[in-house]
């Protein structure tokens, strides 16, 4: 079975620059409105007013889809989280909230997450420069219509002091199995943290790491220009990419049998298991991804792995199957079936 790549968000439909290590890049801006209290103090009524005001402007300027309260049930919120279009805080907080998403699923604007506005753009691969240009344009456009809270000293005023100034976080989602397998990851995390970078799990702040995926981005937001933040982040990421490739080379040269064994065992389970939970699937697909990058497996594309990575997650599987009433075991069964079909077919047709 061949899956349509339009099943996943636009930024995962292509393998971008340095795509062997960099899954995707993201920049987000935190913004607030001068004429409203922040979410710690805003009443539910005021939170609704904030949504209305922002909606009026964004609907006029852009062609984004808006999802409000009535659409955002638990499953849909998690569906968006699994697609990296909203944050864990957006899923969990009790605010009146809404989110704008572009048709390609590369841009999302969360309203009433921790700040009134969280604007983010995602792209495949290592592409912070392109994103920076585009998010700046979008931000400038919105700034002309929305009364952003701003001060000369502190910059864009944000609910949390850790976002003050530029309100900008530039993050790259990295796949680092080489560093994990050579026991170098901890060293890399320590080094990155010591120079002011955040290393986080699969969905960012406070989330755990699965499948050797890490989000690395700038910690500090004030005291430097946006361009400097992008440049510094790029420099660090380039070094980590290098480091990861060296680790993979080492594995291939010195532990060839062990690595091939690991990859083919992952393939074996993915193509034969009867039940698969989502975490196990992501972990095995991660090993398969390494196998594809190392040339051990040649008949599966990275895009296929990107598609499966999204579809095996709980809420996305539910949406894909259009079956909300499956219990956990039924889901594990259907998940295993889907993975099996996709990987085996890819095998035969030499995609």
């Amino acid at each position, binding site marked *: 079975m061949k899956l349509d790549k339009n099943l996943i968000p636009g930024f995962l439909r292509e393998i971008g620059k340095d795509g062997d290590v960099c899954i995707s890049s993201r920049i987000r801006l935190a913004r*607030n*409105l*001068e*004429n*409203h*209290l*922040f979410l*710690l*103090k805003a009443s539910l009524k005021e939170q609704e007013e904030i949504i209305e*005001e922002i909606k*009026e402007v964004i609907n006029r300027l852009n062609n984004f889809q808006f999802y409000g309260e009535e659409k955002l049930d638990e499953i849909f919120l998690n569906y968006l989280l699994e697609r990296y279009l909203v944050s864990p805080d957006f899923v969990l907080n009790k605010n009146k909230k809404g989110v704008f998403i572009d048709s390609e699923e590369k841009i999302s604007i969360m309203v009433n997450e*921790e700040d009134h506005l969280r604007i983010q753009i995602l792209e495949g691969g290592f592409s912070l420069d392109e994103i920076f240009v585009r998010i*700046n344009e979008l931000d*400038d456009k919105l*700034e*002309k*219509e*929305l*009364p*952003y*809270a*701003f*001060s*000369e*000293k*502190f*910059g*864009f*005023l*944000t*609910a*949390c*002091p*850790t976002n*003050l*100034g*530029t309100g*900008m976080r530039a993050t790259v989602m990295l796949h680092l199995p080489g560093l994990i397998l050579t026991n170098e990851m901890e060293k890399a995390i320590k080094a990155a943290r*010591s*120079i*002011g970078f955040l290393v986080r799990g699969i969905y960012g702040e406070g989330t755990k790491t699965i499948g050797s995926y890490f989000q690395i981005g700038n910690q*500090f*937001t*004030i*005291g*430097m*220009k*946006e361009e400097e933040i992008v440049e510094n982040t790029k420099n660090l990421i380039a070094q980590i990419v290098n480091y990861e490739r060296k680790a993979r080379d080492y594995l291939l040269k010195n532990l060839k049998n062990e690595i091939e064994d690991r990859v083919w065992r992952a393939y074996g389970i993915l193509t034969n298991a009867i039940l698969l939970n989502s975490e196990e699937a992501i972990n095995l697909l991660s090993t398969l991804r390494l196998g594809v990058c190392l040339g051990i497996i040649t008949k599966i594309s990275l895009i296929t792995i990107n598609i499966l990575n999204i579809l095996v997650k709980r809420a996305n599987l539910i949406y894909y199957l259009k079956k909300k009433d499956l219990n956990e075991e039924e889901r594990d069964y259907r998940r295993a079936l889907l993975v099996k079909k996709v990987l085996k077919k890819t095998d035969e047709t030499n995609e």
Partner: protein
Amino acid sequence: MDEKGNKREIAICEECAKKRGVLESGKTLNIEEILKIMLKAKEKEDKELKCPRCLLTFYEFKKYGKFGCPDCFKAFEEKLIPFIKKIQTTIREKEEEVFHKGKKVTVGVKRSLLLSEIKRLKMELEKAIREEDYEQAAKIRDMLKEKEEELKKDEIG
């Protein structure tokens, strides 16, 4: 140590401590006792520093780690500058303070507030007319006129 992270040394002997009221007479000097008193005083100060717009105190800001509104920054400015330096840089020893160097808004805050207020009033005016509430519509029209004049003045200025 004060809020700015500056150390201030005060020499206290039992005698002075009693005079300053730091120590109750009859008690002997006790370091723990002094620290407790100093912390209490600091807490009291933080609880009294309050944002006039959203009523968040500096004490609450430290407790939640979040601001309540855009005016908090003015209200807490003095205490914020060293605080931001502490959490937003790894180079703590450096003397200089950390301020915004990035992009700025192009539309002034006052102007953008006026613009958004005008937009809101226009929407309300339409609604009032739609609902045939002409008394309300007249009121809104007056307010709108006022705001538009203010905006014009702002443009000339």
